[in-house]
């Protein structure tokens, strides 16, 4: 079989054959490039617009910047300054960081311990507990909003960071346990049993063997949870309510759409500020994100 392919590829050096290969490949290239461009265009338009003067932005389409392509004077950073200071976007950016980092670390710590117990400890009800967790993966958050909000109002947790951290910890838990338990469960049995025979306690096995070996899975979940929390609107809207001093970027951007819907210089710059961190995380850690998706594509 390989002989045939080799023969064919050596023959295809003639010009006519090359042209034929190129012609059959052309539609594929055309489709892929067209779709990739189509998918990028809306974001590119936003980015270019956010750098244009407010008045010009409302008069001509963003693609007109391409006609004098090297005229850099048509770009400025004033919109960013305006939305950062004037619309509270700087504060919101800080709030988003304050919300997202603990809301990522807390579930990781809790889920890793639980995943280890579910994978490597013997106790009654282990199987049924994990089945319940698999079931909880797809429960709509909407099912929990009203009772949790009422409890938060009684406990004074609504409008606080602690309330949002805890809520995200709870909501991220099923995916975290599911992802990590599946990964930790595939670690070599010999390794863990050998350590146990040598007298290592569960805690030692956990901290010295399981956690270091599970870093890829932990990283996948971390990227997933961080993007989820940073991009979340629902949890912030419900549990932080109208408290502007603690609002994350998504909430401020949403209010901006409502209040200043035609001020495109503010909206475009604000949207890009809200996207910059997830985009950086995404491009830097895409590998882990994809791995998490492949392992946990049951979450809704």
């Amino acid at each position, binding site marked *: 079989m390989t002989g045939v392919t080799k023969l064919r590829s050596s023959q295809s050096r003639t010009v006519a054959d090359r042209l034929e290969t190129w012609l059959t490949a052309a539609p594929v290239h055309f489709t892929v490039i067209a779709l990739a461009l189509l998918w990028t265009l809306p974001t590119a338009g936003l980015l270019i617009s956010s750098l244009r003067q407010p008045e010009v932005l409302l008069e001509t389409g963003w693609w007109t910047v391409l006609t004098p392509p090297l005229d850099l004077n048509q770009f400025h950073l004033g919109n960013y300054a305006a939305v950062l200071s004037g619309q509270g976007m700087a504060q919101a950016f800080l709030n988003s960081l304050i919300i997202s980092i603990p809301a990522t670390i807390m579930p990781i710590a809790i889920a890793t311990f639980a995943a280890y117990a579910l994978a490597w400890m013997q106790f009654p009800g282990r199987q049924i507990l994990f089945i319940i967790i698999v079931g909880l993966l797809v429960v709509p958050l909407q099912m929990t909003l009203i009772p949790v909000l009422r409890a938060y109002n009684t406990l004074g947790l609504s409008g606080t960071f602690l309330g949002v951290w805890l809520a995200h910890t709870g909501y991220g838990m099923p995916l975290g346990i599911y992802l990590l338990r599946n990964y930790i469960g595939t670690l070599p049995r010999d390794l863990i049993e050998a350590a146990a025979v040598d007298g290592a306690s569960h805690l030692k096995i956990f901290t010295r063997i399981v956690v270091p070996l599970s870093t890829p899975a932990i990283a996948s979940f971390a990227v997933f949870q961080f993007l989820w929390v940073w991009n979340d609107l629902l949890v912030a809207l419900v549990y932080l309510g109208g408290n502007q001093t603690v609002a994350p970027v998504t909430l401020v951007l*949403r209010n901006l759409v409502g209040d200043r819907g035609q001020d495109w210089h503010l909206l475009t710059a604000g949207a890009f500020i809200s996207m910059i961190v997830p985009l950086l995380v995404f491009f830097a850690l895409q590998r882990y994100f994809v791995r998490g998706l492949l392992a946990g594509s049951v979450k809704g």
Partner: protein
Amino acid sequence: MQDSSNAIRLISAIAAIIFGSGGIIALFYLANMAVNRLPYRSRSRILPWVYMVPALTVLGAFLILPTIRTLIISFMDRQSTAFVGLDNYIFAFTDPNMLIAFRNNVLWLVLVTGISVGLGLIIAVLVDRVKYEPLAKALIFMPMAISFVGASVIWRFVYAYQPPGVEQIGLLNAIAVALGFEPIGWLVNKAVNNFALIAIMIWLQTGFAMVLLSSAVKGIPKDVIEAARIDGASELQIFWRITIPMISSTIVVVSTTIIVLVLKVFDIVFVMTGGNLDTDVIASRMIKEMFNFRNFGRGSAIAVILLLAVIPVMVVNIRRFQQQEVNR
């Protein structure tokens, strides 16, 4: 003033990070030490629960108990003071606005799932043959990193409308005008506004479908395809007879994931139109009942309907998981 409150916030965030990682690990250490003092037999019985309890507590407090509570509230009046039987459900299935929301949700489910999975599959197969595959994939996948709110702003700008005669700043209307049509109010015209919102979700989810399907396509053994080619199968035949059947389980997983996501998404509607002009979906109606009308009974009943809609997916997931456990 602003600076000092920010300082307090930063300190509390750092405290939370310490509490979140260090604190919880310290807690495990302490509990572990306490358990270690017990005799061996009871130790091995209690230790698993030490590891499980924090997780079970948050799962119980934020998912299990609230779900049960919502089920009960859905049979009660707006302030949960008295039982009203099935009134909230009768409302949910008869109210004209709810019926529109159901219709829209069906549109969302069919179009988003069908188009993003179909397009994702086509891209996954095509991209396998080009050298710049990673770049093309990253560009199509990138919207996955963008929030629904961010995506809504991006697309509001694409859909921007100026009256006829004024230069259009929205890409879509500029194209429409260049082709000789009148500019269209994409978000206000009832014939197109739902499709305009659905397009955003397709833009966001196609990359997700493509990434999962692409890794499945790469998993197909090369000699199977090679053998089919030698037997004279056309590329199209290979696609329908080999690729699709061999990745069918991934197609099912991707489709169910997107179905669940579409059922729950409220952000796009909430930001773009506020659910006005017949664009509501079930999830956005729920938030409306809860916040705007303060009717917790109706809001809960709508949430329960969402839960019922995802139960088949839940069952499939659990079955699939049990299968995996058997195969291990």
